[in-house]
């Protein structure tokens, strides 16, 4: 029979399959080797880090790079700042956007048209385009050098509202009516009925917010000038890109720089296993970032 033939073909590897597999392994190598290089250096001793040669495995295993970056160069401070800004910012983003999505369920809600118009407008005008006036707005509101400026940046997004609105639309009306008959107000219905039902959508939004906010770069670059308040990406840029940071009189060695890169990746590593489930949804959300 024909189906058996198909199965037979699949079970045996021919030359083409082997070449394909080799090509994929090659591709993986191109993606992984630069990372492996950074990881190996970050765990190398000061002496090994300055030695020439190919570093794909820690030579003279040591945590000195991490200690120098974390304590001496005080990467812990921007790290903590970023944790705070990311956590609060992601939470507020989910909260504000999901509430807006809920109000859009009511076709005769007077503000509905306004919200839709504002959403479309904000999705058309990219943040980069209003970089300078946004700086002025933050300055006029006294938000420069505050965490608030970073938390508010991107607090609501049209893409998130649309995504959650699509989830909310799928909630059966009977659930809503039952709650209303029990005397629940809109906020209660939103919090007790709609949020729990939309957990997968909220999770996807939250995860990509965490990644986006942890990686936030343009906003802290523009709004934060006080050393104590800089975020992880800005600190990393000074350390690994500009080479401007100094630890006393020493120059910053490769193991310290790569340790800082790994610290900058740490939050993503924690989030990554959860992200995998949302690859495809992330594509719609990722469209925001352009």
């Amino acid at each position, binding site marked *: 029979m*024909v189906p058996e033939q*198909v199965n037979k073909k699949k079970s045996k*590897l021919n030359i083409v*399959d082997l070449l*394909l*597999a080799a090509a*994929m392994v090659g591709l*993986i190598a191109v*993606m992984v*080797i*630069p*990372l492996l290089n*950074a990881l190996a250096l970050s765990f190398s001793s000061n002496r090994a880090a300055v030695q*020439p*040669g190919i*570093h794909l495995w820690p030579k003279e295993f040591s945590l000195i790079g991490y200690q120098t970056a974390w304590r001496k160069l005080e990467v812990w401070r921007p790290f903590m700042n970023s944790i705070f800004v990311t956590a609060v910012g992601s939470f507020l983003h989910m909260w*504000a*956007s999901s509430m807006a999505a809920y*109000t859009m369920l*009511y*076709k*005769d*809600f007077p503000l509905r048209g306004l*919200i839709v118009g*504002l959403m479309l*407008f904000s999705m*058309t005008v*990219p943040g*980069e*385009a*209003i970089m*300078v*006036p946004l*700086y*002025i*707005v933050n300055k006029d509101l006294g938000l420069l050098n505050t965490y608030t400026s970073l938390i*508010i940046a991107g607090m*609501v997004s049209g893409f998130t509202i649309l995504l959650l609105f699509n989830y909310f639309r799928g909630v059966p009306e009977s659930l809503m*009516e039952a709650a209303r008959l029990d005397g629940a*107000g*809109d906020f209660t219905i*939103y919090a007790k009925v709609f949020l729990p039902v939309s957990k997968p959508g909220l999770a996807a939004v939250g995860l990509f917010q965490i990644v986006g906010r942890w990686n936030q*770069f*343009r906003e802290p*670059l*523009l709004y934060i000038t006080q050393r104590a308040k800089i975020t992880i*990406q800005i600190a*990393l*840029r000074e350390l*690994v*890109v500009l080479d401007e940071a100094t630890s006393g009189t020493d120059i910053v060695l*490769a193991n310290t720089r*790569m340790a800082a*890169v790994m610290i900058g*990746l740490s939050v993503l590593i924690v989030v*990554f296993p959860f992200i995998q489930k949302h*690859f495809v949804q992330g*594509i719609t959300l990722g*469209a925001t970032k*352009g």
Partner: protein
Amino acid sequence: MRRLKPRKYAQLYLMALPTVLYFLVFSIYPVIQGLYMSTQKPLLLGGGVFVGLENYRGVLKDRMFWRALSTTLQLSGGTIALGVLIPLIVAIALNELPLPRLRKFTQTIIYTPHLFSWVVVGGIWIQVLSPDGGLLNELLNLVGLQKVHFLADSMWIKPLIVLLSTWKGLGYNAVIYYAAISSLDPEVYEAATVDGASRWQKITKLTLPLLMPTVRVVFMLSAVGALRIFDQIFVLRNAATTRVIDVLMTYVYDLGMRQFNLGWATAASFMVTAVGIMTVGMLRKAMNVDQADLS
């Protein structure tokens, strides 16, 4: 659409308030403020005078602006071309791979750099490309070649930015393509197998034509941000290359934040945005891509 009427709207107003306020203050107002600023010439003692379209004319006469535009088009053009094609090949190869474990693993690995910030990507690659002890130069040394100071070389920097952008974004586009391939009708392929079609024939006669709508979507997604590239340039530029890889958004940043020429900076960014919106609109029409295709 729901027609349920809540007893009163008071709670809904409260729930919509943060969103409306946010958009008004951080989206609408900055645009109005920016448009106003773009028609002002600052005075020495503060304040400004209305100069009409003088700032726009000034930007259009600035050779740096045109150079930045040309660089942006080169870098984005290269990135879009590679970013549309290479992931397509990768996704088809993944689909042809009869080893499900390796397939899944490859997908996961190549997607990862998409999540990295440009500072992290820059940090990792500056190390690999470093002239003293960098991995690539050590390899060149092994085969007896001269050291190259890749990131400070005006000949290397542009291709490198295109390649690094591809490295970072390849997996993301490959996942889009792969998802599209997975959703193609398997019966079509079974029918082709029955008809004795070879693997290559199935790829060129079935998969590729069926993927064309997705290719268009990926192209559109990449084109939307084309004029706005900023982070990668900002992270990778240095004293030796800054004039070579200056793009539109770094031009705006330097004008506005370093020279405090707010009039020119806002005029330039509005022109870039207008051209961007028009280009994307025209492309969308020409290529027949609807928003619906995105979901």
